[in-house]
């Protein structure tokens, strides 16, 4: 018999229930970062979560927050409506790459450009996870998916969209950062970024955006460890981490 020792705790806003995410998936880590930021900043009771379509459609099962489901890609529009109706509430969207960078491209661009005072957590794992691993707008050239079985061809389908760079170029954006959660060091940086994004919303500075590079071991056909490694060797070189916009920083990158 082994004794179970609790070595750490988790924020109360995270629910205690079995996860539906696959082993090695980074959604759980990203959820936790949001939970920690909202808890640390004392925002839990004042926050409205805007979910999206994809594996994270069930995020409301894991975060004890008032929440709404959005049609595919429309979360930034739904969040705009909520924030305009309830300007005193903290509002955030949580979206994957298919949702945000493909079908929802218009909504995210204009929400950011209007400078809606909301936060978007963008989880980029380079595939459509829930539907079974189809090619996404962020799929890397050469990456094999169920709709690019020979690898993504730049000639036919273009190349992976770098969203944080695009978002950072828009006038209404207060903060845009790309992070990863594949190592403890990167998780620490991601934790700070998510917290900062919500802090900027509290300060009313405008749109804040955090892109989280994430694994999808199932659809990448990799072990969780190999998937973590792929973030380092393939994704970060193409999607460089860092701050792309920060209206409070003295020098922008």
């Amino acid at each position: 018999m082994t004794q179970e020792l609790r070595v750490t705790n988790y924020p109360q806003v995270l629910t205690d229930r079995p996860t539906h995410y696959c082993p090695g998936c980074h959604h759980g880590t990203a959820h936790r970062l949001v939970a920690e930021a909202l808890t640390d900043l004392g925002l839990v009771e004042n926050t409205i979560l805007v979910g999206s379509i994809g594996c994270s459609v069930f995020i409301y099962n894991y975060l004890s927050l008032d929440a709404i489901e959005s049609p595919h890609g429309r979360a930034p529009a739904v969040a705009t409506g909520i924030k305009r109706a309830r300007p005193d509430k903290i509002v955030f969207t949580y979206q994957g790459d298919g949702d945000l960078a493909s079908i929802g491209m218009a909504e995210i661009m204009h929400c950011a450009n209007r400078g809606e005072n909301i936060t978007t957590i963008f989880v980029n794992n380079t595939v459509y996870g829930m539907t079974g691993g189809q090619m996404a707008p962020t799929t890397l050239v050469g990456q094999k998916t169920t709709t690019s079985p020979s690898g993504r061809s730049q000639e036919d389908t273009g190349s992976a969209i770098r969203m944080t760079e695009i978002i950072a170029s828009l006038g209404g954006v207060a903060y845009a950062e790309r992070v990863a959660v594949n190592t403890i060091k990167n998780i620490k940086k991601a934790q700070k970024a998510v917290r900062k994004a919500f802090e900027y919303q509290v300060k009313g500075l405008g749109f804040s955006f955090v892109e989280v590079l994430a694994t999808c071991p199932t659809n990448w056909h990799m072990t969780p460890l190999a998937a973590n490694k792929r973030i380092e060797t393939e994704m970060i070189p193409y999607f460089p981490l860092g701050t792309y916009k920060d209206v409070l920083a003295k020098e922008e990158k």
Partner: protein
Amino acid sequence: MSQPDRIFIKGNEAIARGALAAGAKCFFGYPITPQNDIPEFMSQAIVDAGGQFVQAESEVAAANMLLGAAACGIRSLTSSSSPGISLKQEALSYMAGSEVPGVIVNVSRGGPGLGDIGPSQADYFQSVKGGGHGDYKLLVLAPGTVQEAYDLTIKAFDLAFKYRNPVMILADAIIGQMKEPVVPWTPEHRDPNEGRTWGLVGAKDRAPRLVKSLFLEDGALAGQNLKLQAKYKRMQSEVDQELFLTDDAELIVVAFGSIGRIVKSTVRKLRAQGKKVGLVRPITLFPFPADVLLGLAKQGKRFITIEHNMGQMVEDVRLAIRTVADSDFYAQLPGTLPTPDDFEEPILKALEG
């Protein structure tokens, strides 16, 4: 008692003013003819009233903004015209599925496709029969005058919140662009916090609230659909119609909205000639006044349906009276502007037929 002040305004402005009188706090729009007066008016007026105006990036986004604002329990609306309403159908299905109350104004125009910018009633199907995916109903109100456009917009908000369901104002380019005198009024005793039991405000000292239309657990979607159908059945009590000279009529003309109003003039003229014709003008298109029509059919009356389209509401008229009678149909072609004289011949033909 002094005569209330009357204002001389377009139907589009009457709808906007009606929404403000009803307490609307958020408007989400996108330019499209012939409804542009509504967002233009609202861009100033709703802000002056302490509300929010957003010109969205698309009709898709505007409707989803409505979904978000209305989910907070705040009276909100969007307006558009036919091609734009097609784009809003996605969010309307979600609003119906997740029981979110909001008002959608359709100042309809000719189609299909880009059609034209003139009046048409060819959006009856996409308004009354759903339009988006799934088994759902909108409450649909069809004003026949500018005053009625004002009044029904106020009613639309009350119904939306009473049933937690999207409500559509189905007007057309005639109602939207026509100027008439309106007596504005403001409803009394409105509950300013009517969404308190379900609106999203943050989960403070209570369990979280979830506005959703996804029901994956075994039997859950079946339960939700049964719940919605029971609600649509309750909505039948809201049925409303104008009856004009139907008692002794041999022929009933069924027409809605602006066409119903024009046909009324035709009926008056034919009555002066001793012709026994009457009018049923459905004001609610869903719920549809099927029982009223069946009652008239059982009295042995005959029917002609006149619409500004190629034949849409006539299907519901026929369904309503199918056990005892049938209805002729006359199509006023979309994109044309009819006068009362245009309807004389088809009505007389049906009367003699």
